[in-house]
């Protein structure tokens, strides 16, 4: 797999300077930074949407004519769609519109038993055969969830969306990238050994159908993919010229707009990526406390989270068409407003990028997948992951120092107590 902008990203990393260059004497205003932030969000969600549309084409081809080649092509399209989404995650925290929406596209962990069959033989059941766990949407045209009976005779985007949103704000996780991933790969039953999920293409073949309900499974896969594209469309529009998310950030006073940007970067670095996605998995040595657990693509999803943070910080975004979107990042504003904090944070973010590149390289080399890296007794892998976690913690401290230097106020997710009553809110 090849990402045209990987080289660009590394180039930026080596020179330690923002791609956006200023004529001597120019000053970057917070308003210009906020405007370019919204432009970056529109472009980055646009690229995520375009990559998802390519995935949609591949899924349509698989459903129309199931074959090993078509399944491989769909898996490849899914893997190629991930960096374009992951690099947007720095927009999540601080932008309520994004955070409220995020659960529909990237929710994890997944209620896979609600979607399709899962193997309970690995859970110590007596049978040697795969025992198919039956209470799932694909196998059941009629479902009971809590006190609700749901007509699932036709699997449509609306149906799976309603399942996802069942039970008030607390959802069954039945849609998004990871639902699609589960349908394309199936469960990864290899533990911390090598190998990803291994669903046969015949699971989607009405003629040579394996594991039953192949037409319903194909309909689920298509519905989930169509829904993903529609949800990404919605987020692109939110950052468009009249979009609510753009208006929201541009209507904020300067200090709040800058705080929004750093809240997103700090919260993703700390509680979300370093804490929940990485440290927890490392402590538990759980092979599936990895982000892209069915496809063994976690090394990439983590790397592009970090790469995306650098883009948002520096204002320089490699695009899917090979061009680079450039404009004033908060880095450029800090260059004059808080030069020492900026220099420090540049170094910390570059260090984090290098640590995550080491994980990515190890994963890409085929020597060790991320789930193996966090396995018990794997000193080399554990050390790689721990170093990456430490670099994110340091990066968070650098972001907090910049917040102080710029005289801003932010709340980094998971980083302090809830002394601020305004932070006590409904999820």
């Amino acid at each position, binding site marked *: 797999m090849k990402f045209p902008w990987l080289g660009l990203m590394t180039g930026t990393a080596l020179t330690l300077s923002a791609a956006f260059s200023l004529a001597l004497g120019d000053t970057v205003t917070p308003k210009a930074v906020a405007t370019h932030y919204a432009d970056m969000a529109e472009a980055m969600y646009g690229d995520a949407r375009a990559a998802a549309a390519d995935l949609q084409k591949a899924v349509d081809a698989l459903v129309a004519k199931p074959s090993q080649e078509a399944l491989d092509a769909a898996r490849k399209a899914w893997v190629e769609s991930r960096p374009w989404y992951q690099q947007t995650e720095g927009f999540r925290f601080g932008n309520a519109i994004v955070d409220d929406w995020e659960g529909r596209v990237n929710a994890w962990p997944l*209620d896979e038993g609600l979607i399709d069959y899962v193997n309970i033989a690995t*859970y110590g059941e007596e049978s040697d055969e795969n025992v198919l766990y*039956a209470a799932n949407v694909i196998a059941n045209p009629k479902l009971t969830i809590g006190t609700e009976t749901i007509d699932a005779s036709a699997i449509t985007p609306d149906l799976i969306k309603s399942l996802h949103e069942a*039970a008030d704000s*607390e959802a069954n996780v039945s849609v998004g990238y990871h639902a699609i991933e589960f349908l394309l790969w199936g469960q990864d039953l290899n533990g911390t050994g090598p190998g990803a999920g291994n669903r046969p293409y015949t699971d989607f073949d009405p003629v040579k159908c394996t594991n039953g309900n192949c037409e319903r499974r194909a309909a689920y896969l298509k519905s989930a993919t169509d829904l993903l594209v529609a949800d990404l469309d919605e987020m692109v529009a939110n950052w468009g010229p009249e979009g609510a998310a753009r208006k929201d950030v541009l209507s904020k006073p300067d200090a709040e707009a800058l705080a929004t940007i750093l809240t997103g970067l700090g919260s993703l670095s700390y509680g979300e990526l370093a804490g929940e996605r990485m*440290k927890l998995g490392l402590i538990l040595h759980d092979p599936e406390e990895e982000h892209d657990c069915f496809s063994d693509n976690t090394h990439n999803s983590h790397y592009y989270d970090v790469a995306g943070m650098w883009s948002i910080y520096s204002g320089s975004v490699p695009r899917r068409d090979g061009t680079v979107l450039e404009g004033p990042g908060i880095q450029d504003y800090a260059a004059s407003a808080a030069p020492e904090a900026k220099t420090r944070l540049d170094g910390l973010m570059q260090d984090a990028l290098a640590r995550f590149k080491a994980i990515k390289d190890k994963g890409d080399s085929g020597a060790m997948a991320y789930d193996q890296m966090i396995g018990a007794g794997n000193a080399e892998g554990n050390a790689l992951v721990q170093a990456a976690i430490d670099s994110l913690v340091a990066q968070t401290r650098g972001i907090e120092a910049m917040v102080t230097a710029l005289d801003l106020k932010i709340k980094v997710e998971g980083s302090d107590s809830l*002394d601020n009553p305004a932070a006590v809110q409904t999820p």
Partner: protein
Amino acid sequence: MKRIPAGLAAVLALTATAAADPLDTAMGKALFARNWVAAPASTDASDGLGPLFNARSCNACHAGGGPARFETDNGRLKARGLVVRSGDPDGRPHPLLGAQLQTEALPGLAAEARIAVRLQGEGLVVETRLQVPEDAVVLETRIAPSLRGRGAIDRIDETAILALADPSDRDGDGLSGRANMIADAGGRLVPGRFGSKATGASLMLQTATAAALDLGLSSPLVPRPHGDCTPEQADCLAHATGRSTITEDEEISVDMVRLITAYVATLEPRQPDMAARGFELFRDSGCGGCHVPQLPDRDGMPVTIFSDLLLHDMGDATSSELRDGSALPGEWRTAPLIDLDPRQETRRYLHGGKAATIEEAIRTHGGEAAPARDRFRQLDGRERQLLLDFLAQL
């Protein structure tokens, strides 16, 4: 009771958590907010929800670590963080329904009940429709408390709690106060300090109990993989569990409970203004007889929780027919007065949410609290308001 300079307790609290890995509370917060999923799922450490459950996450009922909330949506009142406990006519957990009605179930199973709430005037009406009709059942509502200050309660010296106990009112002050002695994780009998009937021996055990009862997650501390399923609920017991070697053969490990507890312990109480006139009125009215402002922690430093953590008879108006540990019907643990903020009227008070305001909650007190309640009633309007303002900022 000794007074301490305001702020000292907060400083001490910081040092108490400073030794932990800074990511512990971040991971704990993530686990607190995590939507758990049904077993079997590929994510071994994240499955184990149910089979019967009230919520998928801690955060669903304690949003941001806060209390139950009552919001009106399109004219319909919605309660988040309200549960209905169930018992037999003797007050013991119900043989079919268990200790609590679960309103959610994994696909293929039926939930035990549907619960709807509405207002009648200021009064809260909780309507419970059982999936399987049962005659001999006692139902009582409970609302989720704010989790602020729970770390402080956990630090309190147990001998200080026991020293306040006076079960037969030997000192003749009209206040009995009984410790609900309960086994801790090591099997030692200690005074319970958490929960409306003081059945939680420690914050970790209380957290593990909530995980089992409300989410259906078992841990080595409370090893109940089927949550609140009873032997009569065979289909529930037959359901797959999320037990895994990764999580110490249960659904969540002791370490995961510890992380959640570490996060909850960061939710510190606010520092009340003890120089306020409202505090003097609170003290002089006798509220502090049970709502003891400060107790020493294990290092002898005062902690402000406004509770003696003992069981008292609160009278008929708040009577309970359910037993819990050694707590008798009618007995409640003195609720800590921490985080009473009305939150734009989305808040309710007392164990079951009976009171819409702090004032109504005070007026509903009876039993041993009747004399203090009467002194509150006798305050003039301005003084009553000063006292209420003091409580609202706790």
